[in-house]
């Protein structure tokens, strides 16, 4: 993939991750690619060794790419730290694409450390009846009902907006490419992962 394509993908992943209330699929290959590119660009710059405007512009570009990458990883880490119970249980239930291996390790360490702290500070002094708690289910899950702005990339037909109940038929909409919607995140969760819909 060319540098431009990689950067476009990173940019797209960054915006989607920032606007989404939950974690999207982990993209470790994009992260690896971008890190390698940054290293190559820095090596190129170092080997030049004269102070020209071109070098400055390249350096600024490297800084900007580094910012986008760190911001992407930071927003993932923030969501992971806030809702680690939900994501760890999701992983145990079999949905393994959301967390990279390192992120999974990090989440597990956080989970054990937090439980140990609660145990040491209070739980171990409590009577046997309430001595342990299920930390993973107590940690608040992400708010999937949040409204997000979405821009449709590929047409989607028959998206169920309201499920069928006894009173009425299921309410469905057709989304054409290029349209923009303000819609509950839960309805388009799988579409964002597929790339059919972008968050704005």
């Amino acid at each position, binding site marked *: 993939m060319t540098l431009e394509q990689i950067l476009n993908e990173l940019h797209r992943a960054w915006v989607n991750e920032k606007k989404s209330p939950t974690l999207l699929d982990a993209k470790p290959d994009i992260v690896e690619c971008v890190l390698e590119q940054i290293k190559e660009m820095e090596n190129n710059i170092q080997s030049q060794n004269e102070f020209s405007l071109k070098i400055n512009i390249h350096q600024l570009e490297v800084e900007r790419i580094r910012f986008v990458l760190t911001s992407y*990883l930071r927003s993932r880490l923030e969501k992971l730290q806030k809702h680690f119970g939900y994501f760890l249980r999701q992983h145990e239930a079999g949905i393994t694409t959301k967390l990279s291996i390192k992120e999974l390790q990090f989440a597990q360490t956080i989970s054990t450390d937090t439980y140990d702290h609660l145990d040491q500070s209070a739980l171990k002094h409590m009577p046997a009846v309430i001595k342990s708690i299920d930390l993973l289910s107590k940690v608040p899950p992400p708010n999937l009902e949040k409204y997000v702005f979405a821009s449709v990339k590929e047409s989607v037909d028959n998206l169920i907006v309201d499920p069928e109940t006894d009173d009425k038929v299921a309410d469905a909409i057709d989304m054409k490419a290029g349209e923009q919607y303000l819609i509950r995140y839960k309805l388009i969760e799988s579409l964002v992962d597929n790339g059919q819909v972008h968050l704005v």
Partner: protein
Amino acid sequence: MFGEKGLELIQDFHRNRDGTLGPYNEEKVRQVLEEIQALVEANQKDVSRAVKQTSSRTDMAAIEVRHFGMVRNQRCLMAYLYNRLQKIRTLRWEFGSVIPTDIKSNMSEMEGQWFMKYNRSLAFYMGSLGENGLDLTQNIKPPDSLLIEVRCLEERGEMQLDNGSTILLKKNSIHFLPRSQCESLIREGVLEHIT
């Protein structure tokens, strides 16, 4: 009434929520734990009476009320401890891996240990990204220029830059430095960005 001390703990935390961490209220935590213990013991007496079938309906109601009191106290304690941990976590991202001593004195011993463990796991994660690791606490704002003008607020003596040259950080001296090296010092408060 049961659960009052638990509520006071939560109110304590709520009052301090905008600033940095408030002091760890060891005394109140202990009192809440004692209350839980007292409730359990009272309940055990009643339950043993129920087993012998010498209890009345009021006793069963009392057992339920005490149980809910216990659970509520536990919930208040968990909320207090957990939210303090969240606060400490934000402090790590603000101040870096060394927290100023006046805030540190507000943390309990176990919170200090949790902070060290968090530092370790965060450093491990950041170090595993790419070859040399990627410091996620840098580059918080998008860069719009390579070099920035900073004024030094404290005496720090000499500092070495990445390109080998050294600069002398005297109070009120103005320097024109690359952004990446200033960022952590600006966050610490040693340098001030002149706009």
